[in-house]
């Protein structure tokens, strides 16, 4: 349905983003989706709206490549990004064997034997940078650096493509864009081995 037959995508990647209302999960999933489109991939996402956005559990699904269904099934996600550590307990079911968990927490959360887990204290980093509401971008930057972005075996897009997507979204140049960029770079710096 959404697959352009002329240029069948080589990448198929499924990502679940989890957090609570107000943390910017929706923003993050749209940013990633826009980066995917700019990279020439078809994309499908599914978002949480309504009452849950008032501080309740919020989850976004993101599928890059030729898919029809907007939902990631349990056991299928290549990547799980968690902005609220307590959510790992009930969202780790989405991860595939060999999948990767990146969580906003001071130390890695145990997510079972067949999962690679990475942690970054994105809240503390964002606060220290004077941008407490940009923990989402710190986490994303960290994940891109730690797992690799735009490379084989890594996330479908690179840090540079996220920067471009941010600039399109926030009209590159303003103070909001500058704050977003520095949060992303802070995460990248901490994620680089």
């Amino acid at each position, binding site marked *: 349905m959404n697959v352009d037959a002329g240029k069948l995508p080589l990448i198929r990647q499924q990502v679940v983003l989890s957090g609570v209302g107000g943390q910017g999960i929706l923003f993050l999933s749209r940013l990633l989706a826009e980066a995917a489109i700019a990279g020439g991939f*078809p994309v499908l996402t*599914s978002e949480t709206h309504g009452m849950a956005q008032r501080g309740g559990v919020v989850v976004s699904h993101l599928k890059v490549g030729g898919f029809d269904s907007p939902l990631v099934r349990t056991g299928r996600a290549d990547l799980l990004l968690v902005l609220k550590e307590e959510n790992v307990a009930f969202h780790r079911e989405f991860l595939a064997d060999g999948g990767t968990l990146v969580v906003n927490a001071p130390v890695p959360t145990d997510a079972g034997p067949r999962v690679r887990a990475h942690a970054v204290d994105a809240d503390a980093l964002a606060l220290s940078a004077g941008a407490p509401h940009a923990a989402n971008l710190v986490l994303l930057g960290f994940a891109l650096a730690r797992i690799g972005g735009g490379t084989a075996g890594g996330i479908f897009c690179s840090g540079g493509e996220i920067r471009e997507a941010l600039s399109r979204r926030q009209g590159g140049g303003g103070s909001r864009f500058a704050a977003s960029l520095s949060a992303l770079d802070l995460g990248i710096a901490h994620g680089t081995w």
Partner: protein
Amino acid sequence: MSDRILMQGNDAIARGLVEAGCAVAASYPGTPASEILSSIDRWRKKCGATMHVEWAVNEKVALEIAYTAAIAGLRAAVSMKQVGLNVASDPLLSAAYLGVTGGFLVVSADDPGPHSSQTEQDSRLLAMMAKVPVLDPASPAQAMALAGTGFDLSEAFGVPVMLRPTTRVCHASQDVDAAPFRPPVREARFVKDPARWAATPAYRRLLHDRLAEKIAAIAAWPATAPIRVNPEVSPAKAVVASGVAFAHARELFGELGISCRIALYQVIQPYPLHAAFIDHLLETYEEILVLEESAPVIEMQVADRRRVRGRMTGAVPGTGELLPEIIERLLSRFAGLPVPGGALPAQGGGRRPTLCPGCAHRSSFYAIRMAAPAGIYPSDIGCYTLGINLGAVDTVLCMGAAVSQAAGFDYAHRLSGKQVDIVATIGDSTFYHAGIPPLIDAVVQGARFVLVILDNGTTAMTGNQPTPGTGIGAGGETTAAVDMEGLVRACGVRFCRTANPDRLPEFIALLKEALDHARERGVAVVIARQPCAMVARAAGGKAPGAIVITEECNGCRHCVDRFECPALVFDEAANRVRIDEMLCTGCGVCVSVCPEGAIHLEPAGEKRS
């Protein structure tokens, strides 16, 4: 760079409507349909079309406005969530008889699950009752295309048409082609024909006959006929699916490798189901599995109980969302493959939603429990339904019912010779939507209760759409504004006072005064007026100061349990409360909540550590 952009389902529907020349659009906000109307206004501005776009006071009014434009020859659309369609069902059923001259689309968004609704009802059943054809998109891109198809269908047969997306279409996003467009323009022209537009019962009978003929013809309309995904094979089994259940099924057909063994059909128009398709199914297949949300609308039209399986036969769960994990199991079983036993995604669990830090509703609810500790608290639909966490919401039925339920509780107890304090809460938007008729009724019947109208000047839950009290239109333009106090008094209420609930001691005293009035003299209304904290934050409102918690905090938990501001965090190790400075708005209301006087507001800039 591609010219494809990320479009949310609701945005795609809006784009499809505007592109097809929709001239009048009206709506009342409700998840998952809320974004459609604001998006229509954005597309309108983008292509420079001349349109009337409005947030109507409720769904019934919205439908009547759009319908009327369609009998004046224009293309028009109304959008709402499924329970909104209940409110608008009266004009819908009649509009089906009378028909239209311009295209008329009713977008009713369902919420199987339900994720953010009172019910998981299926709007397609209401379409069937109304004898209105209904289209069931599987993706944002298809929803966009079907908006145009819907107008064509509506005009080809002169009937209203329903477009029924679900949450997983409305709130899915997808890359969609965003080429510039120029919508067609028409001139409004109402041709008088009172025998039709004001038909009497005798003529309605004829109109009903005519409608039945139209429905029979629509069941043969080629443009909305079911699509066979894999025509190259001729197996003995078929899966018939619609909406997002089809999207899940199509993806799973590939993954499970069953495309060569089972036929897959997408039904675009679940009602009326194409007659030739029904014959074809029954002539061709031994077993047919129907996947649809959330009622067995397709299934019931394929009338062979021995060969058709679905929600009616129990082969498919009778309630709840058809998640892809469930469809994977159903398809595996149907194909004779091993059935996977993997987990379903976690339902519930995790942090419960709560009112925002600095939300004035929290103050109102705290005050209500202080003023009427033994009271009954009927409430209504909105952010303030979360007052349930604060023990200040006892009932929630449907839009506007807080007022009628308050009256109902009084009459019921009065019969038993009892008087109870009843304090009902309703938001400003909900009050305008459905709270006024029950208030008039309560005054006339001499009901004894206090109604607190939580007036935060917005429809907050659904994304801060304007209310009739704000004087702002759907596109940000200036409109007339309704005077709430004048309206309440005009309903016959003799006690009507307005106050800021964040001034807690004064507000509690006012509520007690209102309760005294209600006990002796009938309905009292208190308008709790304070802007939504989210709106204030977005507007860059300055915090009045910084909150500190002194050594006097003895860990009694009163503020966290009874006031539940997310910025008040109980530190178990230290057995005291601390402030989460990332969340605190500095509203200062908690200062008067602490019984120990341990919470202080330091004037801005003077905070000590």
